[in-house]
């Protein structure tokens, strides 16, 4: 990439370019380390100039992320990163803006901004580190904690049902909704790239282990022995297959997803549900797999939904350009005087 006449070809970025000389201070074994590593790994491949990346985060263990990426960044206030990112993107559409947030940050205190940014569809990437707990404040239950959760603030168990972030994002008319997890590094890298390439608000929920306050919450979906039977990785245009020997699939029985054994009772790959990331209704069904415990549906990962829709900043810019083109930019003196003036003379 040539920048200007005299400057030589820009140096090729590597993951090292994104690691600042700051000590990373998450607890040992925290899932956040992996997310940082995968992000630093894919960033050089995105073709964006280093100075054009911006991270905006709220408050929480997860939100410390901003300090650990050697890009521009703002570690802001609890829950408001999405709102700050909206203003930044509206005024500087050319920047690559990334929001890092937690389950408390995005869904509790920042819930209002979260749903609205999805609806407005700024071209921003939101990474929600879901550890189903408030990490930074030392272990209270969060809006994604399962009912009955025993924490410091709920010593006898929480009494409220959790949000399913993917469902919420779809309900808020998100145009890109995906899920991945800290311990599946390759999958995460793939999802992060797809999130970047999607034009519009990309929402990525990342299951993240908090070994200190909520250990092993997602190991079922990442441990070798249990992963294959309990997780399904959806891909656009591919059938929903899972199981220890890729021997199970998901079929649609009317409106009901059903787990079927492949090559039994005459069921073949051709009978399975083929994932279509443009299908909003089916994306909602996938996001809701966990609500049918009797059927033992696996936990879905991957891009559930991705559609093209005009972004807020493009619409805003288009409107400004159209009106500027029609009316022409008035001089400041014209604005100061307005349309109706009168003279007082002596």
């Amino acid at each position, binding site marked *: 990439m040539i920048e200007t006449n005299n400057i030589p070809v820009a140096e090729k970025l590597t993951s090292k370019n994104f690691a600042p000389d700051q000590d990373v201070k998450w607890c040992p074994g925290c899932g956040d380390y992996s997310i940082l590593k995968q992000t630093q790994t894919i960033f050089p491949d995105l073709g964006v100039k280093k100075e054009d990346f911006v991270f905006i985060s709220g408050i929480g263990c997860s939100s410390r992320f901003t300090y650990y990426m050697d890009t521009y960044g703002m570690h*802001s206030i609890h829950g*408001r990163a999405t709102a700050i990112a909206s203003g930044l993107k509206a005024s500087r559409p050319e920047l690559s803006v990334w929001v890092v947030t937690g389950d408390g940050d995005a869904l509790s205190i920042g819930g209002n*901004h979260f749903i609205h940014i999805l609806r407005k569809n700024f071209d921003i990437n939101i990474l929600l580190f879901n550890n189903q707990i408030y990490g930074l404040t030392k272990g209270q239950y969060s809006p994604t904690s399962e009912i009955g959760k025993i924490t410091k603030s709920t010593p006898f168990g929480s009494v409220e049902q959790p949000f399913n972030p993917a469902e919420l994002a779809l309900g808020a008319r998100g145009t890109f909704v995906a899920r991945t997890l800290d311990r599946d590094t390759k999958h995460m890298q793939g999802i992060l790239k797809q999130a970047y390439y999607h034009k519009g608000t990309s929402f990525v929920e990342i299951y993240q282990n908090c070994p200190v306050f909520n250990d092993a919450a997602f190991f079922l979906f990442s441990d070798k022995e249990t992963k294959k039977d309990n997780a399904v990785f959806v891909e656009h245009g591919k059938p929903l297959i899972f199981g220890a020997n890729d021997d199970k699939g998901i079929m649609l029985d009317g409106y009901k997803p059903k787990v079927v054994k492949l090559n039994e009772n005459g069921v073949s790959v051709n009978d399975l549900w083929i994932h279509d990331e443009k299908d909003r209704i089916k994306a909602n069904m996938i996001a809701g797999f966990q609500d049918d415990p009797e059927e033992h549906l696996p936990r879905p990962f991957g891009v559930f939904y991705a559609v093209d829709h005009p972004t807020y900043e493009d619409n805003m810019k288009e409107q400004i350009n159209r009106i500027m083109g029609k009316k022409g930019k008035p001089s400041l003196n014209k604005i100061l005087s307005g349309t109706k003036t009168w003279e007082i003379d002596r």
Partner: protein
Amino acid sequence: METKEEIIEVESVVVKFSGDSGDGMQLTGMQFTDTAAFLGKDLSTFPEYPAEIRAPVGTVSGVSGFQVQFGSKEIFTAGDQYDVLVAMNAAALKVDLKNLKKGGIIITNTSGFDQKNLRLAEYPEGENPLDDDSLDNYTVYKMNVSGLTKDALAGMGLSNKEIERSKNMFVLGLLYWIFDQSPDFTIKFINEKFTGESVIAQANINALKAGWNYGDNTEIFNTRFKITASNLTPGTYRSITGNSAAAIALIAASEKSGLPLFLGSYPITPASDILHELSKYKECGVRTFQAEDEIAAICSAIGASYGGALSATTTSGPGMSLKAEALGLGLMLELPLVVINIQRGGPSTGLPTKTEQSDLLQAMFGRHGESPLPVIAAESPSDCFSAVYEAARIALEHMTPVIVLSDGYIANGSEPWRFPSEEDLKPIEVKFETEPNSENGVFLPYKRDEKLVRPRVIPGTKGLEHRIGGLEKQHETGDISYEAKNHELMVKMRAAKIEKIADYIPLQIVDTGKEKAKLLVLGWGSTYGTLKTAIGELLEEGADIAHIHIKYLNPFPKNLGDLLKNYEKVLIPEINNGQLIKIIRDKFLIPAVGFNKIQGLPFTTSEIKSKILELLKN
């Protein structure tokens, strides 16, 4: 044409238009005002709306009023009492009669005084103020405006509803005749407003002319007014409301600084008009963002400021409370931001459509932590321009959020404005850092210049990547620091940076009166016009008084303390329960005396005068 009526020459007149919310009194008042302004009069207006959008028709709570004082001399208030009251129904008379001058003129629409309207206005059964002697002290003109309008528009094929809607134009035409003002300005306005609806336009014009002719032809009216020739400062004028002035001030600051303008806002009375107004200026590249709440509004503005825009957020008291946490962030990040609070009666939803000056202490202290911010107050509708422009200049040149206090009275009120030209405006210096600012080639985001201001670097600047945030920063490097001594240093540094702004604002002047006197009246914000009028009148009577009006409330102008020493007594009138007085007493240790009105209304000139006289006596 031979005139049969008595013509009274006056310097100024106060007119109050009062009617049901649906009677179009605001539009009528604005038209009357614009015409007067156009014909070279100075003026000041005071619109008053009910809090409900559609309060029950005919009731006292549904009354909407528009007061204007206009004249040939300089006018600073909408007037204490009116010379002429237009009462379109019984409720309007009931609400507004109390402030009509004894001997004043009442113009009534008799169809608004039928059984039903009298009952709705809660007059006792069988009582009609137009029929008994209760209005004997006034000159009352009774006419069936509805009926007269109907006659004037007969044969035009209009529905009753459309005819009803034109009756305010009849009244306006009559008022033009009474005050010898040409209706041409309004005819032009109607034609522009109803382009493509020629029947409606014609109906309104016909009603307007019918009103004029009614005054001219019938011999009911025995008084007309003529305003003496104007002695205003020569120049080119326009009419402006406080909120429009605030909006164009932001555009002006954007042009002068060369930065794109971003406004993040959430609708709230009486601030929404700034959002409305700026949203019209797409051709100037203005980006307005109606956020999901006030928190998002200020946060989006902080984001845009980080990106390099001139950023602003506009609101009123309740919204200001929601913005408090993010203001702390803006202060910590040391990013420029203009925050405009159009105050209204509080706390909570309070009196949403009424005025108050009760957010001064909030602006000064209403945040967590040690968090001083500059505060500037606007004094009049047109002064909202200079207050907001100054706020933008200080925000950009000193890298800080700045709070502007206006209020419902001046935000909605209007006056003629001898507007500045581009060349008259102070330049605004903005610099984006693009190179490392230390010897060893490292960029130090919190290294300060002689103003104690840190460098502004925007994302996209090659080689200066760095992080900022709300955690305490190490001096110069901006790295996170929890070190005890550093925190104290930084708290003091941020305070000193705001104090230093005093070197870059004008010194305080004595507005009227002498440099030394028995009594000083010290005001701030929208009380300016009333105080100036009251003090001007008393000075003419020889009172030993002076008036200082503070625009820069934080930091104060450097000479304010010295000025205050020149007066034996200091009176601080405020539309609140005593806020500036706390700050003045604390800062200058003087025994100032407060004078407070908390009724959702501005002071009247006579209230101020009698308070001053009382203090001068003992």
